[in-house]
């Protein structure tokens, strides 16, 4: 196996996913399948190749910048309208620090 159940739990923790025990076992099998295929990349010598993050239209670096001017935007009510819990125009969440 390329990935252990212990590693799956560690990655789930990083990803803020609370996987159930049965999900952890299945996830290890699924990730093993794709990681085994991904190993194929090691056949290639890429030591002299630059990484490429994005294929972008060639333009001046500043071309996408615009004037920093005030414009209409969403109202507070519109911005929080889809939140499950709000209070006084703010998003409300459970306690962060227990004292």
């Amino acid at each position, binding site marked *: 196996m390329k*990935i252990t159940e212990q*590693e*799956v739990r560690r*990655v*789930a923790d*990083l*990803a*803020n*996913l*609370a*996987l*159930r025990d049965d*999900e952890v076992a299945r*996830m290890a099998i*699924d*990730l093993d*399948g*794709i*990681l*085994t*295929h*991904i*190993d*194929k*990349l*090691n*056949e*290639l010598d*890429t030591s002299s*190749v*630059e*990484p*490429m*993050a*994005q*294929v*972008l*239209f060639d*333009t001046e670096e500043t*071309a*996408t910048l*615009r004037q920093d001017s005030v414009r209409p935007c*969403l109202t507070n009510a*519109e*911005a*929080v*309208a*889809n*939140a*499950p*819990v709000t209070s006084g125009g703010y*998003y409300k*969440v*459970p*306690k*962060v620090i*227990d004292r």
Partner: protein
Amino acid sequence: MSTDTSPLHGLSIDSIRSGLLAKKFSAEELARQSLAFAEAENPKTNAYLTLSPERALSAARVVDAKIAQGEDPGPLAGVPIAVKDVIVTRGLRTTCGSKLLANYIPPYDATAVIRLEQAGGVILGKTNCDEFAMGSSNENSAFGPVRNPVALDRVPGGSSGGSAAVVAQETAVVSLGSDTGGSIRQPASFCGISGVTPTYGRVSRYGLTAFASSLDHIGPFGKSTRDAARLLQVIAGRDEMDATSAFAPVPDYLAALDGNLRGIKIGLPREYFDGLASETGDLVIAAVEALKKLGCEVRDIQLPHTPYAVAAYYIIATAEASANLARYDGVRYTTRAAGANTLSDMYRMTRDEGFGDECKRRIMLGTYVLSAGYYDAYYLKAQKVRHLIVRDFAQAFEQVDAIVAPVSPFPAFKLGDMVNDPTAMYLSDIYTVTGDLAGIPCMSVPCGRTPEGLPVGVQILTRHFDETTMFRVADAYEKASN
């Protein structure tokens, strides 16, 4: 009219416009009939998640009023259009195929949506898709799979399965989809219609729910190349709301559809034909023969890094997805799991209950390849391989004007046939992920049916921002094969 015949049967963007201008029908009549037909037919395929009668009728009335006053009603006047549910629509529920966004009402419109409505388009509703556009079969939707209108026991392809299905089912004339690794071309191929992935940056992504930002595209579906080109014409072009949208001028795509392919050089990448099932391969080769007869010069080319594309793609796409999907945490727009006492537990429980299996798999893979100790081995390596794939295409386009290839290794498969083997499902994206990694325009055009009657598409890929040549080849082929 029988209940099986669509009021949109035989209609194109051009014929709707001339019908409206000749007062054969009004935009409102067409919208009403289309909505009624879509509502009646939708249970067969589950292609629409939401119909938007009020929005459609009000857009149609604007078109009718303009015509009555002798004003130009716009290039998409009265055209019934469907929009994939990962593209936001102001005031109209946008679920992304996810339970997490089952009740999400966006406060703004995507730029592509604004442009098509300004052009007189009539949005009938939002289409089903794989959750957050992750899938190749449309079986990963929280609202149930879409069925292929051509064969109801089969998948329509994914992730834009609903947007392909509505055009094939004639419950819309054209539609918008999104493509990150083949999500427009593969369902177009499976449903027997045209689907276009434009050059990266050609169409603004503002309002397209982010999956993998360096790979995401919005693109059109249509029954013909002409319809797809007309729709792209409207949505293409620089948008200051998307910093990656290109400044490149948008040429007149329709003017190039002159049927003349003399001297166009077509490349056949041998790597795309090795091991291809004959039922698909034979049809693609027949399309190449037809292009030769139309005056194209065909030669073999090499894209040697093709066998590495799926591996590079699934590292890059999932890495970007793991970051993009971090925002679905139960705070701002999603549903929230009940019973959590701390913020951290609330995040975890919300995401565990809300995301489907495929999203979890991709978030996990993406988090893993970015995590300490693995970044260089996976993510950086994949970005280097991406560069090699981009170079492969650049070298090929020094010799040829267009590349012709299959879209999918096989035609539409049966629902449930591949759900238990995610790696096999990923590997089936082999012929489509390359175009997204390179950011070049590519499209699927119908090229016939298998002995079982299943549609197959042929893929046409061209240089960055040369949608014109792609459309010219596709349109000439389509006319010759009809």
